[in-house]
């Protein structure tokens, strides 16, 4: 039976990267469609009328939206290969909690580091680093958030690794100094083919942020 899988995405989106990694981990063939967020395609508007955002996974014509939902969906449908979520309900809850934490805390404060200055930026930096330190605490001495194996929380967090150079340069700090464990973890994840081919180079993300700042008229 042929499964038709389409991903509507934007190359620099950490949320899109989560889905790319998940699909690659499971070895799923799919069609990638790059969206122009300035001119959203009729397909995107039809498939995600509520948020009009990427990523959207279209599986045999049916849309699934929201990156963490999509990752869980992929795990549930293609359950036999490389499961992301553990089988124990407590461990599953634990993983969902931390993925939810990343969604609530990391993206917004990180973006503010890129796009604000002065006090607002300092506050965002403080927030951001506090959250990363909490994540480091959760990682502990494990090779991955998932333990010995790359799992759900790893998929949720690793896209932000491609933003590390942009965060530290715009925010004037050193990721290696502030969060050495996360940096080491990121490098470890990049050794996986699914991650390496899904994450843009840190320099590319930095260039993207510079262009964004220019477009928005931010110094």
């Amino acid at each position, binding site marked *: 039976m042929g499964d038709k899988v389409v991903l509507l995405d934007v190359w620099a989106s950490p949320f899109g990267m989560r889905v790319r990694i998940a699909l690659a981990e499971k070895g799923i063939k799919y069609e990638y469609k790059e969206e122009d967020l300035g001119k959203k395609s009729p397909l995107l508007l039809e498939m995600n009328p509520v948020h009009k955002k990427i990523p959207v996974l279209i599986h045999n014509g049916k849309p699934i939206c929201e990156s963490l939902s999509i990752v869980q969906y992929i795990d549930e*449908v293609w359950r036999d290969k490389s499961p992301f979520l553990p089988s124990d309900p*407590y461990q*599953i*809850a634990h993983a969902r909690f931390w993925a*939810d934490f990343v969604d609530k805390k990391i993206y917004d404060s990180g973006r503010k580091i890129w796009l604000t200055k002065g006090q607002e930026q300092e506050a965002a930096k403080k927030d951001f680093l506090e959250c990363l330190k909490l994540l480091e605490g959760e990682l502990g001495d494990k090779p991955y958030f998932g333990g010995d194996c790359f799992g759900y929380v790893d998929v949720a967090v690793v896209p932000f690794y491609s933003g590390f150079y942009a965060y530290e340069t715009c925010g004037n700090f050193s990721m290696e100094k502030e969060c050495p464990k996360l940096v080491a973890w990121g490098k470890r994840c990049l050794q996986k083919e699914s991650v390496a081919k899904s994450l843009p180079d840190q320099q590319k993300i930095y260039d993207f942020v510079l262009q964004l700042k220019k477009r928005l008229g931010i110094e």
Partner: protein
Amino acid sequence: MAEEVKLFGLWGSPFSRRVEIALKIKGVKYEYIEDDLQNKSALLLKYNPVHKKVPVLLHNGKPIAESLVLLEYIDETWEGNPNLPPDPYERAQARFWAKFIDEKCLPALWKALFGEESEQEKAMEEALQNLKMLEKELKDKRLFGGGGGGGGGGGEESIGLVDIAANFIAYWVGIIQEAVGAEILNRERFPVLYKWIDELLSCSVIRENLPPRDKMLAYFISRVQAAKASK
């Protein structure tokens, strides 16, 4: 082995009540511990150091936080009357709408009712749009459904994750509107949603796990007065 289930909650919190509803639907026995928000208890800080909020469930000593995470945990841990359907696509839809309620509906409603005056109009528009989208999702179903037996009627239209997640809309919004003297949700504007509210509140497991209306109203009235006094 004797199972120990404890729930740290707040009598007036919709998030806390969601968890109670889910536990009751499954028939899980638990000990309820009311948390004092003003002086966050040492226990709460121990079991939810990241967010320092209720609800927190302690299952055989192990803590879990975040109400939506808890709804799925309860579903996966105890059998019978599931709040999520077995089909992955339908589960994804339920998760989508639960998230929509928490990340879009609730903040917009809250701002529209309690926010700064400068923000209220915009928040009101957003809240109305969000509620219309929810109505569209309901279509002609009695409940958002997807659950398997908690509604009393069985079949596809039993209480599901989204119904439980939307408890704030079904009950709290009406009370807050009265306290604040505003009206966003009313029967004329949202006939489909109101039918759902009637249906949901007719389920005993929901009705019996809501804070008393007069107590909740008094709480919000005093909040409104305190906010006025501080201006």
